[in-house]
């Protein structure tokens, strides 16, 4: 009896502590940053015309996905700062305000409402796919122009025709990967290992297989695994090895990929491993032996140590206003998103007097006509269904670092 009481006390204490840990941390972390969302604190700027074009932003500034939201915030702020310094859009000042959604669909919709009250004319967000899908329904109802920097799920753009994105959609990464491999002559004979119980992985694989056929790449083996059998890959690797594949395409996440790399190494099988954004972060798997990932290639729109003028300029500006840890593909996507909005708004002659609906109509017509040179690709254009078209970029892991191949 006594033991039970002690146990009950200990358990309830644990519960209280864990609740405290859950609720407190993210709020504290966020406040300081959310408040400074208004960028235009430098008052010295003058603009040709009266009025402000208000661009809203939504993303996780606190919580588990805060790394992505903050990267987008700083990327967008850098672009807005540069644009205002050069006289704004159509002579009007640009204001960017970002609300926190903590990577939660409901909070994201609330944030959308708050931004509408503020007077948002168009939305550069949201950052993550699930909240983006929820907000896109609202935006479609309002005919609000929405440009997501990084919402990659197919569903993000399905609700209406004023919805666009900067990143590749999940399945389109399959097309981009096949294009990259074929155009750069990375390999001819390809094996695939994909997760048949995961929609992300299966979607990329299907598109990859289609595009590979169009590009005359030979797929020698397509092997699957499921979440329930994601430990032993030697059977799949043995098959792929015996078919003579030069490259193994891995449209999967880092945990199974780290096992595949290790098992291939034990078998003495050393093809080129090629992945998509799910593989990004393989080097930060705790205690992972980076030597195993040597030579792994992955598709990513942005390489911080690339030497082209656009990237160098962006990296330099970004480091001035923010922490280097936010310097990733999300920041680059957001930076390009703001410049895409500028290009489209100038083409459509958007003014602050236009209401949300009229802006949406003007912007969606202009988006398919513009072409911008950004840090995530040169000559980016958009189709009417909101998908970007740009040259895919890849990075290679050399000496434990991502470098442009």
């Amino acid at each position, binding site marked *: 009896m006594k033991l039970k009481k002690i146990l009950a006390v200990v358990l309830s204490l644990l519960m209280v502590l864990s609740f405290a840990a859950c609720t407190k941390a993210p709020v504290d972390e966020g406040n300081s940053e959310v408040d400074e969302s208004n960028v235009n604190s430098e008052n010295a700027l003058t603009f040709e015309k009266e009025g402000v074009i208000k661009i809203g932003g939504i993303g996780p500034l606190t919580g588990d996905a805060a790394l992505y939201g903050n990267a987008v915030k700083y990327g967008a702020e850098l672009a807005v700062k540069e644009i205002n310094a050069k006289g704004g859009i159509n002579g009007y000042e640009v204001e960017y305000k970002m609300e926190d959604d903590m990577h939660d669909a409901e909070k994201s919709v609330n944030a959308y409402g708050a931004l509408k009250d503020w007077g948002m004319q168009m939305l550069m967000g949201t950052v993550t796919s699930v909240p983006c899908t929820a907000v896109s329904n609202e935006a479609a109802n309002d005919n609000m122009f929405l440009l997501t920097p990084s919402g990659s799920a197919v569903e993000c753009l399905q609700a209406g025709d004023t919805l666009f994105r900067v990143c590749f959609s999940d399945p389109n990464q399959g097309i981009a990967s096949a294009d990259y491999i074929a155009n750069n002559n990375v390999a001819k004979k390809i094996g695939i290992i994909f997760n048949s119980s995961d929609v992300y992985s299966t979607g990329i694989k299907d598109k990859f297989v289609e595009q590979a056929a169009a590009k005359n790449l030979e797929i020698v083996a397509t092997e699957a695994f499921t979440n329930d059998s994601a430990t032993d890959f030697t059977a799949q690797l043995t098959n792929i090895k015996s078919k003579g594949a030069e490259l193994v395409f891995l449209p999967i996440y880092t945990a199974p990929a780290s096992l595949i790399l290790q098992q291939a190494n034990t078998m*003495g099988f050393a093809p080129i491993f090629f992945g998509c954004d799910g593989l990004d972060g393989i080097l930060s798997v*705790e205690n992972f032996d980076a030597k195993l990932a040597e030579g792994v290639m992955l598709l990513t729109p942005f390489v911080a140590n690339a030497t082209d003028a656009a990237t160098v300029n962006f990296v330099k500006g970004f480091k001035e206003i923010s922490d280097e840890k936010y310097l990733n593909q999300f920041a680059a996507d957001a930076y390009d998103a703001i410049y895409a909005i500028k290009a489209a708004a100038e083409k459509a002659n958007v003014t602050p007097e236009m209401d949300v609906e009229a802006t949406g109509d003007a912007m969606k017509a202009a988006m398919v006509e513009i072409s911008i040179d950004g840090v995530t690709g040169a000559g980016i254009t958009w189709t009417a269904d909101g998908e970007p078209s740009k040259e895919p970029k890849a990075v290679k892991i050399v000496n434990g670092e991502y470098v442009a191949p």
Partner: protein
Amino acid sequence: MKFLSQLISGISLGSIYSLIALGYTMVYGIAKMLNFAHGDVIMIGAFVIYTMCVTAGVPTIISVLIAIVFCTILGVTIERFAYKPLRQATSLAVLITAIGVSYLLQNIALLIFGSDTKSFTSVVNIEPISFAGGELVISGETIVTIVVSVIIMIALVIFVNKTKPGKAMLAVSEDKGAAQLMGINVNGTIALTFAIGSALAAIAGALLCSTYPALSPYTGAMPGIKAFVAAVLGGIGSIPGAMIGGIVLGVIENLSKGYISSQLSDAIVFAVLVIVLLVRPTGIMGKKINEKV
């Protein structure tokens, strides 16, 4: 050559299943309960080794020993607080409790270690052996796992049949009431069973994560279930049966991945289980026991 190499990786996977299945079958054979938390004790054992080895820098052998002690205490504690109060309850109640304990352990691990996958450093320091110019490779982990499984199997058989506490276990498994009347400490014997089962779990955790070095709070769950299937296939309650069931399961799984379809391998494995149980309801090595009325 490809066939041999698929066969060897099947045996490697199977030996892991065997090692886990030994713990399952041991507890089932004596306490007549399915300890679904077994897979999660394995995961906890692996985390103990990970924390000792990687974070605290303790030598491998010592951290494995610490994990064995830790898991033994954990197993006995679980038995004392979760299962013992239910000794007189229906077996269904105990089964549900075991599932609850399994989730409890997973969530505690989530709270402490987070959901990120961690890369485990192998505790085995043996170079892989390669034949036929690198066409056929047997990893050090595979060799150690098979050797360890066989040693444990033999030791368990001897322990159960020859020693006094072992014979007490047999007696408890046959008839708890009668065993108590004969002066056997039933609760003590069941606690001992859990202690041994959990110590085996720690060893299985070390070798599972050395062979497949991705460690997360869910690492133990699926191998645990597969090993349970292996134990049933081999004849649950039979110690050599667990060994054979594990190897058979691993080989079938890998050969069907290699030659039939990597998408259907799990379906094939379970189809084989159904067929075996239709033909031999007690499993490959299971003995038919006539219930006395």
